[in-house]
């Protein structure tokens, strides 16, 4: 039996989808090409259970294909679980597909009636809500025009207004808050808060974690069809972002490996690249960079760093002609061209030196306090007061990720003292 405090109870629900390789739904195909009916059983939800209290707002997060939208569809009763039970208390309204069932030739007003009827409202109930719906949609002047004459924004506004004014006990929302302009979105948000304060249970699926944090009391993170974590939205989202970052780093690593393999397999292309690179280098070239690497604290090649991690620039050069009064330097630029940091051996008062043979230098950036973005590194060999020997622009690219969403250029170490 369902706990009377709960609005939704999901118990041990599993959902598989049959993914046909080539499905035939005609008799001939069914009979003649039996082999073609081969399918793969893809598990989308694997024995998940959760319950949601009356009046609670819960966000479902997870990466694409993790099963969160499937969960919402199960709650809407569009599809049904292979095993397990779902119980819901009260009238359900869904903002999943806004405007499904709108008839383009009918007026906005008529469509309000048909659309609200799809949510199970009787004519009397719709009559009572009609003014609210029209007022909320801000479509007073257009309400008797056929819906086909509406702009897509107007269309969505009307659909949203109907769905949100159904006065459901449970409201299911899938990525909807991309409705209309900023003002209308703010209005939708306020309406959602109002609905919530009236005791409506809300379930939201969204990639916008900020939206969920604004409305929800709890987040459920679904990973590979299982609940990975649930709790206060902030806590869950930090863990989730951290996981996503790790995954991005792995992806970037793979991409780099792939590119390298391609270059090796395709020396011509590598040459082309070399030529392109040259354009970004200028100077006397008496001394030239031969190898440039970005390493992590363990000395491994790395292209993605977390804010605050150690990053090492490892640079090798060959010497063709003696360079006197040499200066090594580097600069870090954000991908949009903003110069974030730059220094050289002269600024840092390293002793003057000459270069007579091949060698290398390292810059150990102990704490990389850049906030998440893509960055470029320029590396330089100069002599005297800024005369280029090998000025190598955009020699390297790296990315910074973080689970903290602060803004600006640098993370300045800080502490808060609150005397409230």
């Amino acid at each position: 039996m369902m706990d009377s405090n709960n609005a939704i109870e999901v118990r041990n629900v599993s959902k598989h989808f049959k993914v046909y390789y080539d499905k035939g739904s005609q008799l001939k195909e069914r009979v003649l090409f039996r082999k073609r009916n081969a399918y793969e059983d893809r598990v989308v939800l694997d024995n998940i259970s959760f319950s949601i209290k009356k009046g609670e707002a819960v966000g479902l997060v997870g990466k694409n294909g993790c099963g969160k939208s499937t969960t919402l569809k199960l709650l809407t009763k569009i599809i049904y679980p292979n095993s397990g039970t779902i119980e819901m208390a009260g009238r359900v309204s869904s903002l999943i597909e806004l405007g499904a069932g709108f008839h383009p030739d009918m007026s906005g007003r008529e469509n309000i009636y048909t659309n609200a009827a799809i949510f199970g409202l009787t004519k009397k109930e719709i009559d009572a809500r009609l003014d609210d719906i029209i007022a909320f949609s801000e479509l007073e002047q257009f309400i008797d025009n056929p819906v086909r004459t509406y702009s897509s924004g107007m269309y969505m506004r009307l659909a949203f207004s109907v769905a949100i004014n159904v006065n459901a006990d449970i409201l299911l929302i899938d990525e909807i808050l991309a409705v209309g302009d900023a003002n209308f979105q703010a209005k939708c948000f306020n309406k959602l808060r109002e609905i919530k304060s009236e005791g409506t249970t809300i379930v939201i699926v969204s990639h916008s974690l900020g939206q969920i944090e604004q409305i929800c009391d709890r987040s459920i993170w679904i990973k590979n069809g299982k609940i990975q974590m649930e709790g206060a939205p902030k806590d869950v989202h930090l863990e989730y972002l951290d996981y996503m970052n790790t995954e991005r780093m792995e992806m970037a690593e793979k991409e780099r490996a792939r590119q390298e393999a391609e270059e090796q397999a395709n020396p011509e292309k590598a040459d082309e690249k070399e030529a392109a690179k040259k354009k970004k280098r200028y100077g006397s070239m008496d001394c030239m960079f031969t190898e440039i690497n970005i390493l992590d604290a363990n000395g491994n090649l790395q292209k993605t760093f977390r804010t605050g991690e150690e990053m090492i620039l490892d640079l090798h050069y060959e010497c063709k002609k003696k360079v006197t009064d040499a200066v090594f330097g580097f600069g870090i630029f954000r991908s949009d061209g903003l110069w974030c940091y730059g220094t050289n051996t002269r600024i840092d008062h390293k002793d003057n030196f000459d270069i007579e043979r091949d060698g290398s230098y390292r810059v150990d950036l102990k704490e990389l306090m850049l906030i998440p973005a893509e960055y470029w590194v320029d590396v330089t060999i100069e002599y005297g007061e800024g005369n280029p020997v090998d000025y190598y622009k955009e020699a390297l690219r790296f990315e910074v990720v973080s689970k903290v969403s602060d803004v600006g250029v640098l993370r300045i170490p800080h502490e808060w003292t609150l005397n409230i």
Partner: protein
Amino acid sequence: MLKEFKEIYAYRQMIFSLVKKDLRGRYKGSVLGFMWTFVNPLLQLCVYTLVFSIIMRQDIERYYLFLFVALIPWMFFSAALTSGSISILNQKDMVKKIYFPREVMPIADTTSNFVNMLFCFIVIFAVLLFSGWGISLYACLALPVIMVVEYIICLGIALLTSALTVYFRDLQYILGIVAMAWQYVTPVMYSSERVPEELLPLWNLNPMTPVIEAYRSVLYYKTFPELNTLLSAFILGVIVLVLGIFVFNRLEKGFAEEF
């Protein structure tokens, strides 16, 4: 079961608006528009009158009336069979995207065809009166009962075929042929007296036979239909409906995944 009926009742406004939309949209864009609802059967009657009183003469008195009063109810059944079977398929976008009791679709489709038949009955009455054939008001008391029985049969068939068609799309074409064949095994164009006696038990299994005979008895022979006929039609209708509901309930949960 009770819960489902309650839910369908709660969605009555949706059924109502679907029926309205269908009836209004049926002849959309044509000059005569909704008038086609009346013009269509009238023109058909003209054709039958011409054909059967001049070319293919029949020994049945005023054969065109004999045929017409059976053909209009038959067309309701035939439409329910063919358009009913694709009622879910045609609304797949809605079925995929939103929840509503799926029964709403075949119910709305059948009801819309039913209402269309009611409009055609205005033409039938007009023709019966103006041709001087006349109407027996007493016999007509049975009409609502017959119509309800036919509605039950049609709804049962629509539930059954609409659910099956989702999984087996060929059914919609097969049913077109079935509808045509079915018309010939039902006494629409002939009197059931022409059916060989030894085949009669088989003939009476056809739920449409008693229905069509009842219509004809009321409208053509101007007599109250035999209670036996009505009762057997009703029983067959209920059987079809129960079967339809059973199959529909079994299959409806997978609809959204089939599109």
